[in-house]
């Protein structure tokens, strides 16, 4: 019932945003939406393992919802500044602005639905809605490049999700043969041990390929990377973090079904291969990347590859994978919020044309430095903890060859990231900078300090509630 109210109210607010043309009205509605989002998150946190019909609150959903709500608030905040800045440069029509805010709220709502869904097809429906919402916002700048990226994102995601739906139908065949007709996750998990292995494997492969477009891992990673090149930074912050978590949740819930069957070892190997290929592709491109946002996108590919490897290794690595998702979300979002300010200063994302950030905007440079420390997994970053746990799990599983390859690849990745971050922060710029100092207020860096602070604090000193929630979430696949 509560979920019904949430979706009803959210849709009302979205409709209001579409039709309202005043900035003030937009801001009020956006504030209301954030309030609604936090109310639902609080409700979900207090009513763990409750829910009826197509929505159910479990530990995984709560973790993802909290991350989503935090980033929803910060992204709303940065969207306001982004739109002001963009409006000054290109004088966007009012309609584009209402569509942007409506798309933002729709995206947040659809992600919430995807996390909470307890029926495999309901998850799919909400994931498909995230595609439309993201497309609207990728198209926001109305340039030739944004049309190209939006079209590619829409088309490839739709085709990929159709494949995922075929996977769901195959799972339906397996369920039918096992004598059940409903596709709720609970029922699937109970009946899984008697599922026909062939249909189950096909279903797993197809959902993995389909949702990989959302999670941004091999083989459908290219769409998200192209989308980042033109998407507004607050939107990139979503595509690269919570939207990847949506893909992860889709794959994770399917994995939970496979985990009960004899095909589990096979599925683990598939995830290991997908993860290693993701890291490999990411590193190859990271070494020669020239565009900041593409660099961040490839870094997301690398990190999601690590998460997939975590799922494939098993044991302690499950914990590492979930921890990695949480910390990666906060870190990557900070990077995108800060790159918006970098763009305000340099008017470009091309790495070679930037430099001297520290001298001109110390607060932002400090954020970037912290971002580098966090994303590279240098202590005290939380990502260090999760990567360390992952490596320990790999040692325990005695897969040394993969571990060594992975470490070599990660070294290259850190080198490439470090080189480009240092260029931005310390190097002498090629040409004089056209600073717009009045638009660069250190207050815009505040949210990044909070998020990065969370990454470090939660890594060093994880609150017991978080640990319990992660352990509960792991029980879904054990």
């Amino acid at each position, binding site marked *: 019932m509560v979920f019904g109210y949430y979706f009803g109210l959210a849709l009302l607010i979205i409709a209001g945003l579409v039709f309202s043309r005043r900035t003030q009205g937009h801001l009020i509605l956006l504030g209301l939406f954030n309030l609604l989002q936090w109310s639902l998150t609080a409700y979900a946190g207090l009513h763990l393992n409750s829910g009826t019909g*197509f929505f159910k609150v479990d530990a995984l959903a709560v973790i993802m919802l909290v991350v989503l709500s935090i980033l929803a608030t910060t992204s709303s905040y940065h969207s306001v500044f982004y739109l002001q800045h963009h409006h000054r440069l290109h004088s966007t029509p009012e309609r584009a602005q209402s569509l942007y805010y409506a798309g933002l709220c729709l995206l947040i709502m659809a992600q919430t639905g995807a996390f909470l869904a307890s*029926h495999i*097809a*309901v998850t*799919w*429906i909400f994931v*498909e*809605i995230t*595609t*439309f919402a993201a*497309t609207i916002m990728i*198209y926001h700048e109305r340039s*030739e*490049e944004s*049309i*190209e*990226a*939006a*079209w*590619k994102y*829409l*088309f490839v995601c*739709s*085709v990929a999700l*159709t494949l995922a*739906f*075929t996977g769901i*139908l195959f799972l*339906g*065949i397996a*369920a*039918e*043969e096992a004598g059940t*007709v*409903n*596709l709720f996750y609970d029922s699937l998990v109970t009946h899984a041990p008697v599922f*026909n292995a*062939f249909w189950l494997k096909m279903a797993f492969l197809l959902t993995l390929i389909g949702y990989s477009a959302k999670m941004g891992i091999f083989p459908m990673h290219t769409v998200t990377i*192209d989308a980042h*090149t*033109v998407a507004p930074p607050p939107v990139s912050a979503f595509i690269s973090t919570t939207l990847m978590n949506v893909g992860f949740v889709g794959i994770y819930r399917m994995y939970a079904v496979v985990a009960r069957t004899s095909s589990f070892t096979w599925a683990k190997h598939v995830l290991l291969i997908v993860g290693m290929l993701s890291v490999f592709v990411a590193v190859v*491109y990271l070494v*020669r*990347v*020239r*565009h900041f946002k*593409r660099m961040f996108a490839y870094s997301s590919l690398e990190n999601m590859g690590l998460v997939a490897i975590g799922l494939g290794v098993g044991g302690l690595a499950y914990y590492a994978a979930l921890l990695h998702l949480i910390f990666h979300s906060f870190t990557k979002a900070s990077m995108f919020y800060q790159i918006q300010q970098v763009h305000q200063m340099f008017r470009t994302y091309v790495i070679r044309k930037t430099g001297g950030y520290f001298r001109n905007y110390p607060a932002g440079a400090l954020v970037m430095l912290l971002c580098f420390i966090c994303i590279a997994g240098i202590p005290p970053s939380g990502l260090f903890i999760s990567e360390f746990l992952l490596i320990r799990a790999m040692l325990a599983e005695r897969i040394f060859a993969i571990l060594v390859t992975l470490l070599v690849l990660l070294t290259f990745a850190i080198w490439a990231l470090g080189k480009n971050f240092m260029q931005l922060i310390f190097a002498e710029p090629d040409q004089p900078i056209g600073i717009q100092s009045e638009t660069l207020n250190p207050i815009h860096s505040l949210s990044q300090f909070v998020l990065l602070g969370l990454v470090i604090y939660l890594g060093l000193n994880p609150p017991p509630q978080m640990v319990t929630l992660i352990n509960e979430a792991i029980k879904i696949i054990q």
Partner: protein
Amino acid sequence: MKAIILILFAISLLNISISNRLRGFARLLTLQGFLLFVLAFIQLNEVTILNLVFVLLETLVFKTIVLPLFLDYVIKKNRITRETEPYVPYFVSLLIVTVIILASFIIVQQIEGLSGNTLFFIVALSTIFTGLYIIISRKKLITHLMGYVVVENGVFILSLAIGNEMPMMVNTGILIDLFIGVLVMGIFVNKIGDVFQEANNEYLSQIRD
């Protein structure tokens, strides 16, 4: 009866592979929509008002009437030339689609434990693969969109083959999603047609490393 319709559907795939006019392609999609309607109607387990309305809406209204009209509108609005402009000759396309259908036959024969629905699976698989083939072998974005519709039709046949029915709410959600998907894509083809001289994928290769 089912068999005849499914075979007709497979023949329409061969027709699609050699259709050189966009309008002709759209007409074939109308035909496919109608065949799907008859198929879904026969396949209905129990005829309740709700089920009937849903099937009517999904196949007859959406796939047979609204979608082809919408495609016609997009074609007319952008003054898209009528050739489908494939990368490969039509004869080769015909051969490839034939091979796809044959391969589907062989693949489905290998699968054990298909309870009498073999023909459904063969046609569904060949439709999905033909759709994907159309997407990769045609230059215009509007044909990509049509290929996507063919893939959707294949998935629809597959869903008919499975006795296991989704709850009505879920079905409605899926239908709305697909409808919005095609609609938004059509709007984008329009936008692309406005910005570039022609909506084809040669213009869409600016973003790279």
